[in-house]
């Protein structure tokens, strides 16, 4: 499936889910004072957040936003 076929709303959902998951892992890593918390943050949380941001930017660049009002049912 090509990016423009996926639609901006689906990409936004993916981006949001990745960001939320990354942020939840970041909270866990901040509450846990241990060397593994550092690894958890760097390799899991940071990767998920960065990927979420990337998906959002991709949605802006490659997917045209639907015209205003298109989300309303006829």
């Amino acid at each position, binding site marked *: 499936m090509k990016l423009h076929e996926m639609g*901006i*709303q*689906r990409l*936004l*959902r993916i*981006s*949001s*889910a990745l*960001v*939320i998951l*990354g*942020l*939840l892992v*970041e*909270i866990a*890593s*901040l*509450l846990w*004072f*241990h*060397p*593994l*918390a*550092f*690894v958890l*943050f*760097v390799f899991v*949380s*940071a990767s998920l*957040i*960065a990927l*979420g*941001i990337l998906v*959002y*930017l991709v949605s802006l660049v490659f997917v045209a*936003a*639907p015209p*205003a*009002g*298109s*989300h309303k049912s006829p």
Partner: protein
Amino acid sequence: MSGLTGMLIAQIVVAIILASILLIRPSVTVGPTGKILAFLGLFVLPALCLVGGMDTQVQRSEQTQFCVSCHAMVPYGRSLYVDDPSYIPAAHFQNHRVPADMACYACHADYTIYGPLKDKLRGVTRIYMQYVSKPPNPIRIPGGYNNNQCLHCHLGARGFEGNPIHSAIMDSLKSNELSCVSSGCHDTVHNVAALSHVKFWRPGQ
């Protein structure tokens, strides 16, 4: 938990709330307000949380408690409390010649431009050894202890430069040809093998 960590967590919670709105109703981005919301919730705030989190984690990783929380490092942490001034790390730690809460980092950090990055990579390698393979016993510093880590503080200090032994071998010390911790000099470092036979200092005694 410090105040800054609390503020960071509060910021993360706000970012999660914004991202949740976009997850549940991505159609809000059709309007200009929704677009701003998406920009804040999926770019600005997560990026700030990422930078804040990295900063907090890096600062934490420089703390003595962080280093000694690994099982293999526990005896090295104990060696800081040996009641014997010939133990170099103990003498530095107990007399606050290095910040007590950053004792490991103060003496083991690589004081070069990419040093902090190299330190973190080495730290991750050690975590791998701790949890996946096996930590070496005794733990050794790859390439040996670098004199620059001592000279970073001692070079230029009156007590250090005024010592005739140091003056005589200064070039060898600066070039790392002769180690500060070599035999006959400051050779009692952590010496964890002998910890069962030594007396310990208790803070507040």
